[in-house]
């Protein structure tokens, strides 16, 4: 089976062990396709309850940006060990909105790699995923627990 070649791959990562496989998959595909690779992290400072005052959330937001920066730096370093020079992008806001905005701002991206989606995120991302399919851009959802062939699950 001939592998599809991509030009610009974006991997949305949350950090953590669960995202490791997603990052590795994106890195592997970028290496095979000789594509540009960008790791994207979205800082979402919203807490489930109104536990804290506004000032505290502002401080927490600054700290979360730091966490995002470290998550991206670690992903970038891991990609470098695989011989892939990756870029990073850090955005702030609702995860689904920011991924959609990034994809809209970067039309050269032809593959979006995501980790396992929770129910809520799956629902909020579904319009974007549908839109990307219509545009002929690829979406790869990497399930952390399964050993999938990357291209077999790439949906277009």
């Amino acid at each position: 089976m001939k592998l599809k070649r991509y030009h610009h791959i974006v991997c949305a990562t949350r950090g953590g062990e669960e995202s490791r496989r997603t990052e590795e998959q994106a890195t592997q595909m970028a290496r095979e396709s000789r594509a540009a690779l960008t790791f994207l992290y979205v800082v979402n400072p919203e807490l489930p309850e109104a536990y804290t005052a506004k000032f505290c959330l502002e401080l927490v937001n600054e700290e979360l940006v730091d966490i995002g920066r470290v998550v991206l730096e670690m992903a970038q370093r891991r990609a470098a060990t695989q011989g892939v020079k990756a870029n990073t992008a850090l955005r702030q806001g609702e995860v689904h909105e920011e991924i959609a905005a990034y994809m809209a701002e970067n039309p050269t991206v032809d593959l979006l790699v995501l980790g396992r989606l929770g129910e809520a995120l799956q629902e909020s991302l579904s319009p974007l995923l549908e839109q990307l399919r219509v545009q002929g851009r690829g979406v790869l959802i990497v399930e952390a627990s399964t050993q999938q062939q990357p291209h077999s699950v790439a949906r277009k």
Partner: protein
Amino acid sequence: MTIGLVTAKVAESGWIGERLSANPSSVLNNTYNAAFWITALVLILVYVLISFEIVHRTAAALLGAVILLVVTYTIGTFNHDFHILSFQQAVKHIDLNVVFLLMGMMILVTITARTGVFPWLAVQAYAAAGGSEFRLAVLFAIATAVLSALLDNVTTMLLMVPVTVEIALILKINPWPLLLPEVFASNLGGAATLIGDPPNLLIGSYANFTFLDFLVNMTPVVILSIIALVMLMRLQYGREYRRLGREETAALLAELREHHRITDSRLLRKSLVVFGVVILLFLVHGVFHMEPSIAALAGATALLLWTGSDIVQELEGVEWPSLIFFIMLFIVVGAAEEVGLIQIIADSVNSLAAGNLIVAILLVLWVSAFASMIIDNIPFTVTMLPVVAYLTQTVPGAQGGILYWALAFGACFGGNGTLVAASANIVTACLAERAGYHITFRQFLRNGVPVTIVSVAIAMLWLLVAGR
């Protein structure tokens, strides 16, 4: 059926609470009328709404208070059986000492947090750990416990967790072996002082315990519990803690110092001076017969004026929903007291204790701990205060206030039992999730239950030995 309860607070000093003072007594004589049943239903409704997070807890308490007052001033005007509590009675039940103390401390923390001192402290802890992850976890836990004793636990965790996660990510380790001891230490440390945890604030204000009473009666147990926590951590995560090389440690330290500096050292100096004076006032407030809220408000006002802060902006740091929650909760539980519902609970606990102090201590301590694992410990404590006041009067040997300390230990330490037992736990889980590290209810339970059992057992031994 006529029921009656003497709701006077404890009188005379005892072994453990030297400054327990006599408060106005009231004998309630109520019947199982419509007002009683409506109040019981409203109290249950508020508990259910809060426990299952159906609505925000402030909305739940507000709804409860409004139902009780509206019923009183509509149907209750024509039929006295529906008269639950008057507006004047409702206002009388609001403990403004608690409300103002919380407000004053929130303003102080708002201004101090802007200096960047909390993440800076975490970096200092990393420097002192000298590359040992276990020592790092211990130092983080101790720093968090000390901060939680002086600030509220949620704020402490909000300021400590991100930098901890960042360090863990750079070290390429799972942050939970660092975060769990931290959050447990936060809940334990909060129990150490009058201002560390809302149940303590409520108990201190209700029973007239001073800051010093808490230092004498709670802090030693908290210190012992933190030592036990460190030992449990060693058992649980011993193999996961590594030792880093000197170069790796130095490189990380340089990076952390670069990102987490004191942002305003002048403001920090002023904050520390004011904080120091407020703590001093807390230590001596009993001597001056000064409510602790006055010290907190004085400190907040002094810092606001000294730093030339914009008061409107700084007041955004006050968690108004929390203050309204407390006010409305006081009204709901006040109504339960007025209609005799609290008396029923007090009588039940009293007959279970059968006049035996040891049984009463065990009951209050363990029931409070288990209840706090499941439900919000603030409404639980507010409900239990008149019950404990009644037991303090009726159980021989309890007059010194030992049952209040049992309630404080149970309500605070129970917060470590489950993921939902304390807001600090939820906030920690939420922030760690942002870095991709999820913890399940079961995983938290597996770690939290041993800590809760051990710390409550230490408190139990302390109370039993000291109570003899």
